[in-house]
């Protein structure tokens, strides 16, 4: 990406100010929507925060959070590490990349919720199925982004590495990975969100604990306030993670484009 294509970075304080402004705008919009639909459909922002606080203070919440958290963590590691390795492999070996890419894109584009029975068959019930479902959602974008990143590495870097007599391991670690890092981080951001989504959907189908279970139970028990509170929690978590990754990406990218 050319440097001029990036919007000129405003001073850090303006950026923060803009974020706060956007936040205020969103909250106001939410408040209005809540007023228009009534609290029994969409809880107002303040009430939601209070509900969330109560929810999180409840003794069993830690268990639910830990359940989702641990499944998500494992799924995320599988998505990111597995996606990175597979993507690097498929990107480096052109033919296998060309063979698998359309299949991966196809798999990415089918509604994976319909694959649940197959997942249950392969992974049995419980934790492993949840993890598998989460990883299934997250790993494909990571593979695709990594693959493209590795493919687009300027060939001259590899030739330069060879001219310095690098071992294959050094080549991978010192040249291939850093050269494709910005795109990989972008893939990670998407992978993070989709893994979380997959884990939650997995929990909605067969579970007795976890945030996904709480969501589906609240749907069945008609507790919109809990649903909105949990959605808020998820948005905040995912946004924070995305922000962190974005900061990392900017740092890495900054070097690339000056």
């Amino acid at each position, binding site marked *: 990406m050319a440097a001029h294509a990036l919007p000129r970075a405003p001073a850090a304080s303006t950026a923060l100010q803009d974020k706060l402004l956007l936040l205020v705008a969103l909250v106001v919009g939410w408040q209005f929507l809540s007023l228009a639909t009534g609290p029994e459909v969409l809880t107002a922002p303040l009430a939601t925060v209070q509900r969330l606080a109560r929810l999180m203070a409840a003794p069993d919440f830690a268990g639910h959070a830990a359940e989702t958290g641990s499944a998500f963590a494992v799924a995320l590691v599988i998505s990111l590490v597995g996606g990175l390795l597979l993507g690097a492999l498929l990107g480096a070996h052109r033919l296998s990349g060309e063979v698998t890419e359309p299949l991966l894109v196809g798999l990415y584009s089918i509604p994976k919720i319909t694959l649940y029975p197959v997942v*249950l068959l392969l992974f049995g*019930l419980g934790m492993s199925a949840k993890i598998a479902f989460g990883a299934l959602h997250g790993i494909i974008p990571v593979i695709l982004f990594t693959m493209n990143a590795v493919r687009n590495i300027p060939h001259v870097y590899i030739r330069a590495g060879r001219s310095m007599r690098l071992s294959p391991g050094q080549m991978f670690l010192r040249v291939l990975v850093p050269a494709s890092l910005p795109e990989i981080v972008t893939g990670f951001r998407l992978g993070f969100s989709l893994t979380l989504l997959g884990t939650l959907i997995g929990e909605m189908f*067969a579970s007795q604990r976890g945030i996904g279970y709480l969501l589906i139970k609240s749907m069945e*028990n008609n507790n919109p306030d809990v649903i909105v509170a949990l959605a808020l929690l998820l948005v905040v978590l995912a946004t924070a993670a995305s922000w962190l990754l974005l900061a990392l990406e900017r740092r890495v990218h900054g070097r690339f484009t000056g």
Partner: protein
Amino acid sequence: VDLTVTHFGTGMYGVPFAVAREKGWFKSDAGLDVTGFITSAGGGTTIRNALASEIPYGEVALPAAIAAIQQGVKLTIVHGGVLSVADQVWITRKDDESLRKFGDLKGKKLGYSSPKSVTDIITSVMLQNNGLASSVERKSVGGIGSGLTALREGGVDMTYVTEPVWSKEKGNFRVAWWSTDIAPRVTQTVGIVRTDYLQKNPDVIKGIIAARRKGVEFIKSNPAEAAPIMGREYKIPPEQAKTAIESVLGAKGVYWSRGEFDYEGMEFMLKGLQMVKAIPEGPFDWKTVIDESYLPADLRSKK
């Protein structure tokens, strides 16, 4: 271990299990250390979950069990579960005075959960009985939450709700009729076991049935004590649990079976499912899929 119980935490079917676990009867009768109950949306998923778990037993929806058996799944029905639809009530908006009797439904919109479900059967029978089949528009609302929303916003004029949600929402809507008014005896759930497991571990299943039976009997004799237990397990206020329990116990007929079967109620369900085309037409041989030998002797049907 975990046991599978359909709609645990959202429906009334699981209350005996909650009580039995709290009282330690699974430990004493079946030697099981039950850590929790797995539940899921959808009957088929529940059965699949049940069959895939460590103890391939579950109290599941009868329609799903019938479908599974018809598709060749090797499972055996070992006990009756919930024998009536006393937890299901049909409601209208509080201020809607126009719906006082079935006939008033003419030209109105009636919400039910989804095609080929129990609510589909109940509404079909109700409309047929009242000659309304062609003059009422039925709409699938998906679930209770969206049903109540639709009712509130006028998307439908009448919809269903089940316990214990109803006990929470009581103040906001008006009861029109109960499902038991249309069908007093409908077997909603049964206990199933994967057949190969059943043959190898008959005592575990017998123990689970016994523990559950104690739970049912305890609720009946001490509803006031059962309510807080249900409240804890279901994460709802004890008062709500209390009204819900009283509501299903107060209805006519048996709600929680101690394990015994109600063949008439099962036959109603079967016919109903065939009527809404959820399963193919044709006779269904209960004898080959039900094994009463794991029930305590006093609960087996008299031949």
